[in-house]
Protein backbone atom coordinates (compact mmCIF):
# COMPACT_ATOMS: atom_id res chain seq x y z
CA UNK A 1 0.00 0.00 0.00
CA UNK A 2 1.31 3.45 -0.89
CA UNK A 3 2.02 5.68 2.03
CA UNK A 4 0.87 9.27 1.84
CA UNK A 5 3.83 11.73 2.01
CA UNK A 6 3.97 14.24 4.76
CA UNK A 7 4.29 17.63 3.11
CA UNK A 8 6.27 20.36 4.73
CA UNK A 9 4.72 23.63 5.73
CA UNK A 10 7.13 26.37 4.73
CA UNK A 11 7.16 29.18 7.26
CA UNK A 12 9.27 32.25 7.89
CA UNK A 13 12.38 32.23 10.02
CA UNK A 14 12.48 35.13 12.47
CA UNK A 15 14.45 35.40 15.68
CA UNK A 16 15.26 31.69 15.68
CA UNK A 17 11.60 30.71 15.41
CA UNK A 18 9.44 29.61 12.51
CA UNK A 19 6.34 31.77 12.61
CA UNK A 20 3.73 32.00 9.89
CA UNK A 21 3.36 35.39 8.33
CA UNK A 22 1.29 37.65 10.55
CA UNK A 23 -0.94 38.35 7.56
CA UNK A 24 -1.85 34.74 6.92
CA UNK A 25 -1.20 35.30 3.22
CA UNK A 26 0.68 32.83 1.06
CA UNK A 27 1.67 32.17 -2.52
CA UNK A 28 1.92 28.84 -4.27
CA UNK A 29 5.08 27.30 -5.65
CA UNK A 30 4.42 24.88 -8.48
CA UNK A 31 6.65 22.42 -10.19
CA UNK A 32 7.31 22.47 -13.91
CA UNK A 33 4.19 20.51 -14.60
CA UNK A 34 2.17 23.11 -12.78
CA UNK A 35 1.43 20.97 -9.75
CA UNK A 36 1.56 22.57 -6.36
CA UNK A 37 4.67 21.79 -4.35
CA UNK A 38 4.09 24.07 -1.45
CA UNK A 39 2.39 27.15 -0.21
CA UNK A 40 4.91 29.73 0.85
CA UNK A 41 4.40 32.63 3.23
CA UNK A 42 3.88 35.99 1.65
CA UNK A 43 5.71 38.04 4.25
CA UNK A 44 4.54 41.56 4.95
CA UNK A 45 6.29 44.70 6.06
CA UNK A 46 5.25 43.80 9.60
CA UNK A 47 7.04 40.48 9.33
CA UNK A 48 10.03 42.39 8.05
CA UNK A 49 9.77 44.83 10.92
CA UNK A 50 9.70 41.97 13.43
CA UNK A 51 12.73 40.48 11.75
CA UNK A 52 14.62 43.77 12.08
CA UNK A 53 13.81 43.86 15.78
CA UNK A 54 15.10 40.30 16.14
CA UNK A 55 18.22 41.09 14.13
CA UNK A 56 19.00 44.22 16.12
CA UNK A 57 18.62 42.33 19.34
CA UNK A 58 20.95 39.59 18.21
CA UNK A 59 23.57 41.63 16.40
CA UNK A 60 25.81 43.01 19.10
CA UNK A 61 26.20 39.78 21.04
CA UNK A 62 26.83 37.93 17.78
CA UNK A 63 29.49 40.47 16.86
CA UNK A 64 31.07 40.10 20.27
CA UNK A 65 31.28 36.35 19.99
CA UNK A 66 34.89 35.40 19.35
CA UNK A 67 36.04 35.15 15.75
CA UNK A 68 37.01 31.54 16.40
CA UNK A 69 33.54 30.78 17.65
CA UNK A 70 31.84 32.42 14.69
CA UNK A 71 34.07 30.43 12.36
CA UNK A 72 33.12 27.21 14.08
CA UNK A 73 29.47 28.04 13.84
CA UNK A 74 29.79 28.67 10.13
CA UNK A 75 31.59 25.41 9.78
CA UNK A 76 28.82 23.77 11.74
CA UNK A 77 26.30 25.10 9.22
CA UNK A 78 28.34 23.44 6.48
CA UNK A 79 28.34 20.18 8.42
CA UNK A 80 24.60 20.27 8.89
CA UNK A 81 24.04 21.06 5.24
CA UNK A 82 26.33 18.23 4.19
CA UNK A 83 24.27 15.85 6.27
CA UNK A 84 21.09 16.94 4.56
CA UNK A 85 22.58 17.22 1.12
CA UNK A 86 20.18 14.83 -0.59
CA UNK A 87 17.16 16.65 0.74
CA UNK A 88 18.44 19.95 -0.68
CA UNK A 89 19.28 18.39 -4.02
CA UNK A 90 15.83 16.92 -4.26
CA UNK A 91 14.26 20.20 -3.30
CA UNK A 92 16.18 22.03 -6.00
CA UNK A 93 15.18 19.47 -8.55
CA UNK A 94 11.56 19.81 -7.60
CA UNK A 95 11.89 23.53 -8.10
CA UNK A 96 13.13 22.92 -11.61
CA UNK A 97 16.90 22.44 -11.52
CA UNK A 98 18.60 19.67 -13.41
CA UNK A 99 20.08 16.95 -11.26
CA UNK A 100 23.57 17.97 -12.25
CA UNK A 101 23.03 21.62 -11.44
CA UNK A 102 21.27 20.80 -8.22
CA UNK A 103 24.17 18.62 -7.06
CA UNK A 104 26.66 21.29 -8.01
CA UNK A 105 24.70 24.02 -6.30
CA UNK A 106 24.49 22.17 -3.03
CA UNK A 107 28.16 21.17 -3.05
CA UNK A 108 29.27 24.70 -3.87
CA UNK A 109 27.04 26.05 -1.12
CA UNK A 110 28.64 23.76 1.42
CA UNK A 111 32.13 24.62 0.24
CA UNK A 112 31.33 28.31 0.33
CA UNK A 113 30.26 28.06 3.95
CA UNK A 114 33.52 26.32 4.77
CA UNK A 115 35.38 29.00 2.83
CA UNK A 116 33.85 31.82 4.85
CA UNK A 117 34.16 29.85 8.09
CA UNK A 118 37.88 30.02 7.49
CA UNK A 119 37.80 33.77 7.02
CA UNK A 120 36.22 34.45 10.39
CA UNK A 121 39.49 35.15 12.15
CA UNK A 122 41.50 36.34 9.16
CA UNK A 123 39.72 39.10 7.28
CA UNK A 124 40.42 41.47 10.17
CA UNK A 125 44.11 41.06 9.54
CA UNK A 126 43.66 41.76 5.85
CA UNK A 127 41.69 44.96 6.36
CA UNK A 128 43.30 46.39 9.49
CA UNK A 129 46.22 48.75 9.64
CA UNK A 130 48.58 50.27 12.12
CA UNK A 131 48.98 53.79 10.90
CA UNK A 132 52.35 55.50 11.35
CA UNK A 133 51.08 58.91 12.43
CA UNK A 134 53.54 61.77 12.79
CA UNK A 135 52.52 62.71 16.32
CA UNK A 136 53.37 60.70 19.46
CA UNK A 137 50.33 58.46 19.23
CA UNK A 138 49.65 54.82 18.58
CA UNK A 139 46.99 54.57 15.91
CA UNK A 140 45.25 51.61 14.40
CA UNK A 141 42.27 50.94 12.17
CA UNK A 142 40.19 47.81 12.23
CA UNK A 143 36.98 46.60 10.63
CA UNK A 144 33.75 46.35 12.56
CA UNK A 145 30.40 45.03 11.38
CA UNK A 146 28.09 47.62 9.87
CA UNK A 147 25.24 46.19 11.96
CA UNK A 148 21.86 45.10 10.67
CA UNK A 149 21.71 44.30 6.98
CA UNK A 150 18.70 43.62 4.81
CA UNK A 151 19.38 41.45 1.80
CA UNK A 152 17.48 40.60 -1.31
CA UNK A 153 18.88 37.20 -2.23
CA UNK A 154 19.75 36.22 -5.80
CA UNK A 155 16.76 34.99 -7.73
CA UNK A 156 18.20 32.16 -9.78
CA UNK A 157 20.04 30.01 -7.29
CA UNK A 158 17.73 29.59 -4.36
CA UNK A 159 20.31 28.02 -2.09
CA UNK A 160 23.72 29.05 -3.38
CA UNK A 161 22.69 32.65 -3.92
CA UNK A 162 21.42 32.96 -0.39
CA UNK A 163 24.44 31.27 1.13
CA UNK A 164 26.82 33.44 -0.94
CA UNK A 165 25.47 36.71 0.41
CA UNK A 166 24.60 35.51 3.89
CA UNK A 167 27.89 33.91 4.82
CA UNK A 168 30.15 36.94 4.31
CA UNK A 169 27.62 39.13 6.11
CA UNK A 170 27.36 37.04 9.24
CA UNK A 171 30.97 35.97 9.42
CA UNK A 172 31.67 39.69 9.64
CA UNK A 173 29.47 40.00 12.72
CA UNK A 174 26.35 41.40 11.08
CA UNK A 175 22.79 40.28 11.56
CA UNK A 176 20.67 39.88 8.47
CA UNK A 177 17.14 39.84 7.21
CA UNK A 178 17.14 37.98 3.91
CA UNK A 179 14.36 37.99 1.40
CA UNK A 180 14.60 34.61 -0.32
CA UNK A 181 14.41 34.06 -4.04
CA UNK A 182 10.82 34.76 -4.98
CA UNK A 183 10.56 31.91 -7.45
CA UNK A 184 12.75 29.41 -5.62
CA UNK A 185 12.15 30.01 -1.95
CA UNK A 186 11.96 26.44 -0.69
CA UNK A 187 15.68 25.88 -0.18
CA UNK A 188 15.85 29.09 1.81
CA UNK A 189 13.36 27.89 4.38
CA UNK A 190 14.92 24.45 4.52
CA UNK A 191 18.23 26.19 4.99
CA UNK A 192 16.72 28.04 7.95
CA UNK A 193 16.20 24.63 9.54
CA UNK A 194 19.87 23.94 9.02
CA UNK A 195 20.75 27.25 10.62
CA UNK A 196 18.45 26.55 13.51
CA UNK A 197 20.21 23.28 14.24
CA UNK A 198 23.74 24.62 13.96
CA UNK A 199 24.28 26.99 16.88
CA UNK A 200 23.60 30.19 14.96
CA UNK A 201 21.96 32.36 17.60
CA UNK A 202 18.37 33.22 16.80
CA UNK A 203 17.99 36.55 15.05
CA UNK A 204 21.40 36.58 13.38
CA UNK A 205 19.85 35.30 10.18
CA UNK A 206 16.19 35.93 9.50
CA UNK A 207 14.67 34.61 6.32
CA UNK A 208 11.50 35.88 4.72
CA UNK A 209 9.67 34.68 1.65
CA UNK A 210 7.46 36.97 -0.36
CA UNK A 211 7.22 39.50 -3.13
CA UNK A 212 10.08 41.87 -3.88
CA UNK A 213 7.63 44.49 -5.06
CA UNK A 214 5.98 44.52 -1.67
CA UNK A 215 9.01 44.34 0.55
CA UNK A 216 11.97 46.06 -1.08
CA UNK A 217 10.85 49.58 -0.30
CA UNK A 218 10.58 48.73 3.40
CA UNK A 219 13.86 46.92 3.39
CA UNK A 220 15.48 50.01 1.90
CA UNK A 221 13.78 52.59 4.05
CA UNK A 222 13.74 51.01 7.52
CA UNK A 223 15.61 53.43 9.78
CA UNK A 224 17.11 50.72 11.96
CA UNK A 225 18.77 48.92 9.08
CA UNK A 226 22.36 49.94 8.43
CA UNK A 227 22.94 48.45 4.99
CA UNK A 228 21.08 46.83 2.17
CA UNK A 229 22.37 44.24 -0.28
CA UNK A 230 20.40 43.82 -3.47
CA UNK A 231 21.10 40.98 -5.84
CA UNK A 232 19.58 41.41 -9.23
CA UNK A 233 19.61 43.75 -12.15
CA UNK A 234 16.27 45.48 -12.13
CA UNK A 235 17.48 49.07 -12.47
CA UNK A 236 14.16 50.37 -11.16
CA UNK A 237 14.72 48.45 -7.96
CA UNK A 238 18.27 49.69 -7.72
CA UNK A 239 17.24 53.30 -8.12
CA UNK A 240 14.43 53.01 -5.63
CA UNK A 241 16.64 51.31 -3.08
CA UNK A 242 19.32 53.98 -3.44
CA UNK A 243 16.81 56.76 -3.02
CA UNK A 244 15.16 55.26 0.03
CA UNK A 245 18.49 54.30 1.54
CA UNK A 246 19.38 57.98 1.70
CA UNK A 247 16.84 58.56 4.48
CA UNK A 248 19.34 57.20 6.99
CA UNK A 249 22.48 57.12 4.85
CA UNK A 250 22.21 53.37 4.49
CA UNK A 251 25.08 51.63 2.78
CA UNK A 252 23.90 50.11 -0.50
CA UNK A 253 25.51 47.15 -2.19
CA UNK A 254 24.32 45.89 -5.55
CA UNK A 255 25.31 42.56 -7.06
CA UNK A 256 24.10 42.33 -10.63
CA UNK A 257 25.45 38.87 -11.40
CA UNK A 258 22.99 36.02 -11.89
CA UNK A 259 25.27 33.10 -11.44
CA UNK A 260 26.99 32.68 -8.07
CA UNK A 261 28.82 29.49 -8.97
CA UNK A 262 32.21 30.85 -9.91
CA UNK A 263 35.08 31.14 -7.55
CA UNK A 264 35.13 34.96 -8.00
CA UNK A 265 31.83 34.96 -6.15
CA UNK A 266 33.67 34.33 -2.95
CA UNK A 267 36.33 36.59 -1.50
CA UNK A 268 37.02 38.58 1.65
CA UNK A 269 35.87 41.67 -0.25
CA UNK A 270 32.31 40.44 0.15
CA UNK A 271 32.96 40.58 3.87
CA UNK A 272 34.65 43.96 3.62
CA UNK A 273 31.66 45.56 1.94
CA UNK A 274 29.67 45.15 5.15
CA UNK A 275 32.35 46.45 7.46
CA UNK A 276 33.05 49.89 8.86
CA UNK A 277 36.60 50.96 9.56
CA UNK A 278 37.20 52.29 13.04
CA UNK A 279 40.38 54.16 13.87
CA UNK A 280 41.62 54.45 17.44
CA UNK A 281 44.22 56.88 18.75
CA UNK A 282 46.17 56.82 21.97
CA UNK A 283 49.15 58.83 23.16
CA UNK A 284 52.38 56.93 23.63
CA UNK A 285 54.41 59.15 25.93
CA UNK A 286 54.14 58.32 29.62
Amino acid at each position, binding site marked *: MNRLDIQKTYKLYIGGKFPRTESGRYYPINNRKGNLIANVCLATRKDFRNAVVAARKAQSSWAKMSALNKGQILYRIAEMLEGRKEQFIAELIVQGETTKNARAEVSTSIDRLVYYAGWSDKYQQIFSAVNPVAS*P*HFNFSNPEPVGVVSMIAPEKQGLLGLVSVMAPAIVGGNATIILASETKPLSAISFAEVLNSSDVPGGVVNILTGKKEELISHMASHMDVNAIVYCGNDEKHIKMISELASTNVKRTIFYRRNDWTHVECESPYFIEKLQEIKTTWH*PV*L*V
Partner: protein
Amino acid sequence: MLPDLNNLPVYDQTGVNERIQRFCSRSIKTSSKTAGLKLAISMIDLTTLEGKDTKGKVRQLCYKAMHPHDSIKDLPTVAAICVYPSYVSTAKKALQGSDIKVASVSTAFPSGQSSLEAKLTETKFAVEQGADEIDMVISRGQFLAGNYQYVFDEIASVKEACGQAHLKVILETGELDTLDNVRKASEIAMFAGADFIKTSTGKIQPAATMQVTYVMLDAIQDFYLRTGKMIGIKPAGGISTAKIALQYLVILNEVLGEKWMNKNYFRFGASSLVNDILMQLVKTETGMYQSPIYFSKD
Protein backbone atom coordinates in the same frame (compact mmCIF):
# COMPACT_ATOMS: atom_id res chain seq x y z
CA MET B 1 48.94 63.27 57.71
CA LEU B 2 50.08 61.60 54.53
CA PRO B 3 47.40 62.31 51.91
CA ASP B 4 45.72 59.58 49.89
CA LEU B 5 48.11 59.07 47.01
CA ASN B 6 46.05 56.49 45.21
CA ASN B 7 43.52 58.81 43.70
CA LEU B 8 45.76 61.55 42.44
CA PRO B 9 45.29 63.01 39.02
CA VAL B 10 47.59 61.38 36.53
CA TYR B 11 49.36 62.96 33.62
CA ASP B 12 49.86 62.06 30.08
CA GLN B 13 53.02 63.48 28.62
CA THR B 14 51.68 63.87 25.11
CA GLY B 15 48.85 66.00 26.42
CA VAL B 16 51.08 68.03 28.70
CA ASN B 17 53.50 68.69 25.84
CA GLU B 18 50.66 69.97 23.70
CA ARG B 19 49.54 72.31 26.43
CA ILE B 20 53.07 73.62 26.94
CA GLN B 21 53.38 74.21 23.23
CA ARG B 22 50.33 76.42 23.38
CA PHE B 23 51.71 78.46 26.27
CA CYS B 24 54.97 78.94 24.45
CA SER B 25 53.25 80.33 21.40
CA ARG B 26 51.74 83.22 23.35
CA SER B 27 53.05 86.55 22.22
CA ILE B 28 53.40 89.19 24.90
CA LYS B 29 52.84 92.91 24.54
CA THR B 30 56.06 94.93 24.63
CA SER B 31 54.97 96.99 27.61
CA SER B 32 53.83 93.81 29.36
CA LYS B 33 57.09 92.21 28.39
CA THR B 34 59.07 94.92 30.17
CA ALA B 35 56.85 94.61 33.21
CA GLY B 36 57.16 90.85 33.00
CA LEU B 37 60.93 90.92 32.81
CA LYS B 38 61.15 93.22 35.80
CA LEU B 39 58.77 90.99 37.64
CA ALA B 40 60.97 88.06 36.73
CA ILE B 41 64.02 89.74 38.22
CA SER B 42 62.13 90.34 41.43
CA MET B 43 61.39 86.62 41.58
CA ILE B 44 64.91 85.35 41.18
CA ASP B 45 66.70 83.41 43.85
CA LEU B 46 70.18 84.34 42.79
CA THR B 47 72.09 81.20 43.38
CA THR B 48 75.61 79.98 43.94
CA LEU B 49 75.96 76.41 45.09
CA GLU B 50 79.42 75.26 44.34
CA GLY B 51 82.19 73.58 46.24
CA LYS B 52 84.50 76.43 45.26
CA ASP B 53 82.25 79.14 46.67
CA THR B 54 84.01 81.69 48.85
CA LYS B 55 82.90 84.54 51.08
CA GLY B 56 84.13 86.95 48.46
CA LYS B 57 82.04 85.31 45.75
CA VAL B 58 78.98 85.39 47.99
CA ARG B 59 79.48 89.08 48.80
CA GLN B 60 79.80 89.92 45.11
CA LEU B 61 76.62 88.05 44.40
CA CYS B 62 74.83 89.95 47.16
CA TYR B 63 75.90 93.23 45.64
CA LYS B 64 74.60 92.10 42.29
CA ALA B 65 71.38 91.11 43.97
CA MET B 66 70.86 94.61 45.31
CA HIS B 67 72.11 96.40 42.20
CA PRO B 68 71.36 94.22 39.20
CA HIS B 69 72.07 97.03 36.73
CA ASP B 70 72.15 100.61 37.95
CA SER B 71 71.58 102.18 34.55
CA ILE B 72 68.07 100.77 34.29
CA LYS B 73 65.51 102.75 36.18
CA ASP B 74 62.95 101.19 38.51
CA LEU B 75 64.75 97.90 38.54
CA PRO B 76 63.70 95.72 41.43
CA THR B 77 66.16 93.74 43.47
CA VAL B 78 66.11 89.99 43.24
CA ALA B 79 64.04 88.03 45.74
CA ALA B 80 66.74 86.13 47.52
CA ILE B 81 70.27 84.87 47.56
CA CYS B 82 70.57 81.12 47.68
CA VAL B 83 73.72 79.65 49.22
CA TYR B 84 75.09 76.75 51.25
CA PRO B 85 74.56 76.99 55.05
CA SER B 86 78.17 78.00 55.66
CA TYR B 87 77.66 81.26 53.75
CA VAL B 88 74.34 82.26 55.26
CA SER B 89 75.84 84.64 57.77
CA THR B 90 78.07 86.21 55.12
CA ALA B 91 75.12 86.79 52.87
CA LYS B 92 72.94 88.02 55.71
CA LYS B 93 75.53 90.63 56.58
CA ALA B 94 76.11 91.68 52.99
CA LEU B 95 72.39 92.13 52.41
CA GLN B 96 71.71 94.18 55.49
CA GLY B 97 69.34 97.03 54.86
CA SER B 98 67.74 95.37 51.86
CA ASP B 99 64.67 93.19 51.97
CA ILE B 100 66.41 90.48 50.01
CA LYS B 101 65.99 87.14 51.71
CA VAL B 102 68.70 84.65 52.37
CA ALA B 103 67.86 81.14 51.36
CA SER B 104 69.99 78.22 52.37
CA VAL B 105 69.99 74.78 50.91
CA SER B 106 69.91 72.07 53.49
CA THR B 107 69.38 68.38 54.24
CA ALA B 108 72.55 67.09 52.61
CA PHE B 109 71.94 69.00 49.41
CA PRO B 110 71.96 67.92 46.61
CA SER B 111 71.68 64.16 47.14
CA GLY B 112 69.86 64.12 50.45
CA GLN B 113 71.74 60.98 51.35
CA SER B 114 72.30 61.46 55.06
CA SER B 115 70.62 60.71 58.33
CA LEU B 116 67.52 62.61 59.39
CA GLU B 117 69.39 63.77 62.46
CA ALA B 118 72.19 65.30 60.40
CA LYS B 119 69.61 66.96 58.16
CA LEU B 120 67.79 68.52 61.10
CA THR B 121 71.03 69.71 62.63
CA GLU B 122 72.04 71.27 59.34
CA THR B 123 68.68 72.96 58.98
CA LYS B 124 68.76 74.36 62.50
CA PHE B 125 72.28 75.63 61.88
CA ALA B 126 71.21 77.45 58.75
CA VAL B 127 68.28 79.03 60.52
CA GLU B 128 70.47 80.09 63.43
CA GLN B 129 72.84 81.67 60.95
CA GLY B 130 69.94 83.82 59.83
CA ALA B 131 68.45 81.96 56.87
CA ASP B 132 64.99 83.24 56.01
CA GLU B 133 64.26 80.32 53.75
CA ILE B 134 65.36 76.71 53.68
CA ASP B 135 65.62 74.78 50.41
CA MET B 136 65.54 71.13 51.37
CA VAL B 137 65.78 68.10 49.14
CA ILE B 138 63.50 65.10 49.50
CA SER B 139 64.89 61.61 49.83
CA ARG B 140 64.35 60.43 46.28
CA GLY B 141 65.63 56.98 47.06
CA GLN B 142 62.97 56.51 49.72
CA PHE B 143 60.36 58.01 47.43
CA LEU B 144 61.17 55.70 44.53
CA ALA B 145 61.21 52.75 46.92
CA GLY B 146 57.64 53.66 47.82
CA ASN B 147 58.38 54.83 51.36
CA TYR B 148 56.14 57.83 51.07
CA GLN B 149 55.53 58.02 54.79
CA TYR B 150 59.25 58.37 55.35
CA VAL B 151 59.45 61.22 52.85
CA PHE B 152 56.45 62.88 54.41
CA ASP B 153 57.77 62.58 57.94
CA GLU B 154 61.16 63.89 56.95
CA ILE B 155 59.66 67.00 55.37
CA ALA B 156 57.44 67.55 58.38
CA SER B 157 60.44 67.27 60.72
CA VAL B 158 62.48 69.71 58.66
CA LYS B 159 59.53 72.08 58.61
CA GLU B 160 59.48 71.97 62.37
CA ALA B 161 63.21 72.61 62.49
CA CYS B 162 62.74 75.64 60.24
CA GLY B 163 60.78 77.52 62.87
CA GLN B 164 59.89 80.87 61.27
CA ALA B 165 61.91 80.22 58.13
CA HIS B 166 60.02 79.36 54.99
CA LEU B 167 60.47 75.87 53.66
CA LYS B 168 61.02 75.12 50.00
CA VAL B 169 60.94 71.46 49.17
CA ILE B 170 63.06 70.34 46.22
CA LEU B 171 61.51 67.34 44.50
CA GLU B 172 64.44 66.83 42.11
CA THR B 173 62.03 65.99 39.35
CA GLY B 174 64.83 64.88 37.05
CA GLU B 175 65.15 61.80 39.24
CA LEU B 176 61.46 61.07 39.68
CA ASP B 177 60.99 59.38 36.31
CA THR B 178 57.38 60.27 35.54
CA LEU B 179 55.01 63.20 35.73
CA ASP B 180 52.74 61.11 37.90
CA ASN B 181 55.55 60.82 40.40
CA VAL B 182 56.07 64.57 40.27
CA ARG B 183 52.45 65.02 41.19
CA LYS B 184 52.75 62.49 43.99
CA ALA B 185 55.84 64.12 45.42
CA SER B 186 54.21 67.56 45.19
CA GLU B 187 51.26 66.26 47.12
CA ILE B 188 53.45 64.76 49.87
CA ALA B 189 55.46 67.96 50.17
CA MET B 190 52.45 70.27 50.39
CA PHE B 191 50.66 68.17 52.96
CA ALA B 192 53.87 67.83 54.98
CA GLY B 193 54.09 71.60 55.32
CA ALA B 194 56.06 72.97 52.38
CA ASP B 195 55.66 76.68 51.73
CA PHE B 196 57.14 76.24 48.30
CA ILE B 197 57.71 73.28 46.08
CA LYS B 198 60.78 73.44 43.90
CA THR B 199 61.67 71.43 40.86
CA SER B 200 65.38 70.81 41.04
CA THR B 201 68.73 71.20 42.69
CA GLY B 202 70.29 72.23 39.41
CA LYS B 203 72.78 69.42 39.85
CA ILE B 204 70.78 66.84 37.91
CA GLN B 205 69.67 66.90 34.29
CA PRO B 206 66.98 67.51 33.30
CA ALA B 207 66.46 70.28 35.80
CA ALA B 208 63.37 72.48 35.59
CA THR B 209 61.15 71.77 32.63
CA MET B 210 57.89 73.47 31.77
CA GLN B 211 56.20 70.09 31.84
CA VAL B 212 57.02 69.32 35.47
CA THR B 213 56.37 72.91 36.45
CA TYR B 214 52.96 72.65 34.89
CA VAL B 215 52.19 69.49 36.82
CA MET B 216 53.31 71.12 40.06
CA LEU B 217 51.16 74.19 39.35
CA ASP B 218 48.24 71.90 38.81
CA ALA B 219 48.93 70.24 42.15
CA ILE B 220 49.13 73.65 43.81
CA GLN B 221 45.81 74.68 42.34
CA ASP B 222 44.10 71.54 43.56
CA PHE B 223 45.66 71.98 47.00
CA TYR B 224 44.41 75.56 47.07
CA LEU B 225 40.92 74.55 46.06
CA ARG B 226 40.89 71.91 48.79
CA THR B 227 42.57 73.77 51.66
CA GLY B 228 42.51 77.44 50.74
CA LYS B 229 46.25 77.56 51.29
CA MET B 230 48.47 79.07 48.61
CA ILE B 231 51.70 77.20 48.04
CA GLY B 232 54.55 78.79 46.11
CA ILE B 233 56.58 77.24 43.33
CA LYS B 234 60.19 77.50 42.29
CA PRO B 235 61.44 76.12 39.02
CA ALA B 236 65.21 75.96 39.25
CA GLY B 237 68.04 74.99 36.99
CA GLY B 238 68.44 75.59 33.30
CA ILE B 239 66.28 78.69 33.12
CA SER B 240 68.80 81.00 31.56
CA THR B 241 67.02 83.24 29.08
CA ALA B 242 64.51 86.04 29.37
CA LYS B 243 62.33 84.36 26.78
CA ILE B 244 62.04 81.15 28.76
CA ALA B 245 61.42 83.10 31.96
CA LEU B 246 58.51 84.88 30.31
CA GLN B 247 57.09 81.59 29.10
CA TYR B 248 57.15 80.33 32.67
CA LEU B 249 55.25 83.44 33.70
CA VAL B 250 52.69 82.77 30.98
CA ILE B 251 52.16 79.28 32.34
CA LEU B 252 51.91 80.59 35.89
CA ASN B 253 49.46 83.21 34.77
CA GLU B 254 47.17 80.92 32.84
CA VAL B 255 47.18 78.08 35.33
CA LEU B 256 47.13 79.86 38.70
CA GLY B 257 46.39 83.46 37.84
CA GLU B 258 47.70 86.76 39.09
CA LYS B 259 47.52 85.98 42.79
CA TRP B 260 50.59 83.87 42.32
CA MET B 261 52.40 86.40 40.14
CA ASN B 262 54.78 87.73 42.78
CA LYS B 263 57.85 86.68 44.65
CA ASN B 264 55.87 85.43 47.63
CA TYR B 265 54.61 82.59 45.52
CA PHE B 266 56.94 82.26 42.61
CA ARG B 267 60.71 82.09 42.35
CA PHE B 268 63.21 81.31 39.68
CA GLY B 269 66.26 79.45 40.91
CA ALA B 270 68.90 80.78 38.56
CA SER B 271 72.28 82.37 38.21
CA SER B 272 72.79 83.52 34.64
CA LEU B 273 69.16 84.47 34.03
CA VAL B 274 69.57 87.95 35.52
CA ASN B 275 72.00 89.12 32.88
CA ASP B 276 69.96 87.84 30.01
CA ILE B 277 66.93 89.66 31.34
CA LEU B 278 68.99 92.81 31.76
CA MET B 279 70.20 92.57 28.18
CA GLN B 280 66.65 92.17 27.04
CA LEU B 281 65.49 95.16 29.05
CA VAL B 282 68.24 97.36 27.66
CA LYS B 283 67.47 96.14 24.18
CA THR B 284 63.82 97.03 24.64
CA GLU B 285 64.81 100.50 25.84
CA THR B 286 67.42 101.22 23.16
CA GLY B 287 66.20 99.06 20.31
CA MET B 288 69.68 97.64 19.93
CA TYR B 289 70.73 94.07 20.50
CA GLN B 290 73.17 93.79 23.42
CA SER B 291 76.47 92.11 24.13
CA PRO B 292 77.21 90.29 27.39
CA ILE B 293 80.46 92.21 27.88
CA TYR B 294 78.48 95.21 29.10
CA PHE B 295 76.85 93.32 31.96
CA SER B 296 78.68 92.39 35.14
CA LYS B 297 79.27 88.75 35.82
CA ASP B 298 79.52 88.05 39.52
